[in-house]
């Protein structure tokens, strides 16, 4: 099967082409049927859907979706004050809509940058409050899905400019700059994200004057961006290397200076080439935000632990809780990776 054109599936031949093949198909179908029936029985037929822990305990062979019905708000919003949870809901919707809009190649125009600035400020204002009659909510009470998406989006937004500088620096004509950028990139890529998060949560407080401490969310965000930037830089470098040298020479011959060549000729082509790889990295970053649960921030994974861990009534039904947040992550990540594939086909077909 070649990459571009997909041959139509010859169902009959593939499934029942020979007696042996037919037997194999039948065995597989039976296996699927058996597994599917048991999964269906557990998840639907025997399951308890209303929030009643007593009823859940009474049926040992069925799922207890009641735990989601009971706990969906602390799972999705963490410790955010209950009556103000419409604010993170609106904030995260706003951010998602902006992301959806910028996913559409036709909207790649100059106004995207101010739109993002407005949308990000609105996100922070809604979450923080303290203006326009909204009660102030400290960052240590932020949590759940808005924190997951916020960390991923803001982390990437902060990492991108740094990554651009690192990628350009690694190809610089100046050997010291080149070494500096290469060292940074390789060092960061050689250590696990957890160690960077530990650094942000244990080590950074020592570097600041005792009176003024940035809160843990800001420190973790800084750690995340510094980490992601190293990976983004390598992707961007790949794109820069793919732009033929002749393009630079031609631009120089037309009288372009050093920076205008990069800004107007090389970067637009390079970034276009690496958009699919960047999208895959967005998926990676979204999944990586789950690690901040380890340093005590209650994003989606941490919020689940908070919602169920402290409640003996519902603690036995962790599995359903994990399946729920796994489904949330899956929808986001699968959507993004399908988008990445679509974009790759669109960009490669002469646009």
């Amino acid at each position: 099967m070649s990459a571009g054109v997909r041959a139509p599936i010859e169902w009959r031949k593939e499934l029942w082409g020979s007696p042996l093949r037919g037997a194999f198909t039948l065995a597989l179908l039976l296996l699927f049927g058996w597994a599917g029936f048991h999964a269906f029985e557990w998840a639907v037929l025997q399951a308890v859907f209303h929030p009643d822990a007593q009823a859940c305990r009474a049926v040992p062979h069925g799922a207890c979706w009641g735990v989601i019905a009971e706990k969906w708000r602390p799972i999705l919003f963490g410790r955010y004050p209950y009556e103000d949870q419409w604010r993170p809901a609106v904030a995260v919707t706003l951010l998602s809509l902006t992301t959806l809009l910028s996913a559409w190649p036709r909207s790649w125009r100059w106004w995207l940058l101010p739109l993002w600035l407005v949308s990000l400020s609105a996100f922070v204002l809604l979450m923080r409050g303290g203006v326009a009659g909204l009660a102030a909510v400290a960052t240590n009470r932020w949590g759940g899905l808005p924190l997951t998406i916020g960390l991923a989006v803001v982390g990437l937004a902060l990492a991108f400019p740094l990554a651009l500088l690192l990628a350009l620096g690694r190809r610089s004509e100046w050997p010291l700059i080149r070494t500096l950028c290469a060292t940074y990139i390789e060092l960061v890529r050689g250590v696990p994200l957890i160690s960077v998060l530990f650094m942000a949560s244990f080590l950074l407080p020592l570097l600041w004057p005792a009176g003024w401490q940035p809160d843990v969310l800001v420190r973790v965000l800084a750690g995340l961006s510094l980490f992601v930037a190293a990976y983004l830089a390598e992707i961007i470098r790949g794109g820069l290397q793919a732009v033929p040298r002749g393009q630079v020479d031609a631009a120089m011959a037309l009288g372009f200076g050093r920076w205008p060549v990069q800004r107007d000729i090389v970067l637009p082509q390079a970034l276009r080439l690496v958009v699919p790889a960047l999208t895959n990295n967005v998926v990676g970053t979204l999944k990586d935000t789950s690690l901040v649960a380890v340093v005590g921030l209650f994003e989606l994974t941490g919020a689940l632990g908070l919602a169920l861990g402290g409640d003996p009534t519902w603690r036995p039904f962790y599995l359903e809780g994990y399946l729920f947040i796994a489904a949330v992550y899956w929808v986001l990540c699968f959507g993004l990776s399908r988008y990445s594939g679509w974009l790759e086909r669109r960009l490669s077909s002469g646009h």
Partner: protein
Amino acid sequence: MSRRRAAWLAWALQALLIAAIASGVVWLVQHALEVLRSRGVHSGFDFLLQPAGFEISEGWLDFDAGQPFWRAFLAGVINTVRAAVPAALIAVVLGTLIGIGRLAPHVLVRGLCRAYVETIRNVPLLVQLLMLYFALTQLLPDSTEPLELLPDVWLSKGGLALPWPVREEGAWWPSHFEWPERGSFNVSGGAALSPEYLAVVTALALYTASFVAEIVRAGIASVAQGQKLAAQALGLTGWQQLRIVVLPQALRVIVPALTNQLLSLTKNSSLAVAVGYPELVSIANTSLNSTGRAFECIAVIMAVYLGLSLLISWAMNRYNARVALRGWR
């Protein structure tokens, strides 16, 4: 501006930048030391020689609380390897099978393999790890009534017990198997694998396998169609085509990408801290909390991981040099 002057200027600017960064780092370190001193916290790596004061629940290296910190860190590194190596082996084998399965001439096999890849790699590893750990420790039967998976392989909340070769005192090679025995309270003897260890190895292996599968699939798809047709024309069987013609060429694409996956598997093993498997990061975290030496403990983590990364890159590059075309690179 003359060429020479431009070169001078470039060097001067670079030197200035480096000097600025270096002085910034020096200032930060001095400032941090000052803050530490003002809080009465000792710093330095001398604590590595002091007794650790905590126990390590499992591992290849015997350890008790009276032994020094450096030995605890060593036990942690060995535990990292103890989890990462089996996970890597399972991931490569399983991933290769699934990758080949994604190109199988049977639509159900292709669909199953694709469903596996798309499900596993779009959910964070941490969530999978926590879910597995919960299932292993809460949903399995108690150790008083373990499940017998295979003859003499027992699985329960207490972990997995399986036959293990043992060697006599002073012997080099194992002489006989030790069989786990089911008592009235638990299973004893043989190799006992803790639920923490099982969860870490399984989660790492299943997660990485989904990425390995994609790499293998891309590698096989990169071999030109004509090669397969030519092999067919020579009368090679399906398995021979794969082994003699397709795989050797596919490996050239696969190996560099696989290296990256093995590197990230090693780094991902640090997530074991979330379920309390005592590998390097868990040990460092415990030490950090008991001694307050954040900088030193994090430096140990980073140094060890950098070392492991370099080691794996080196080994895989050696292997890559063998599978690459002669005259390439």
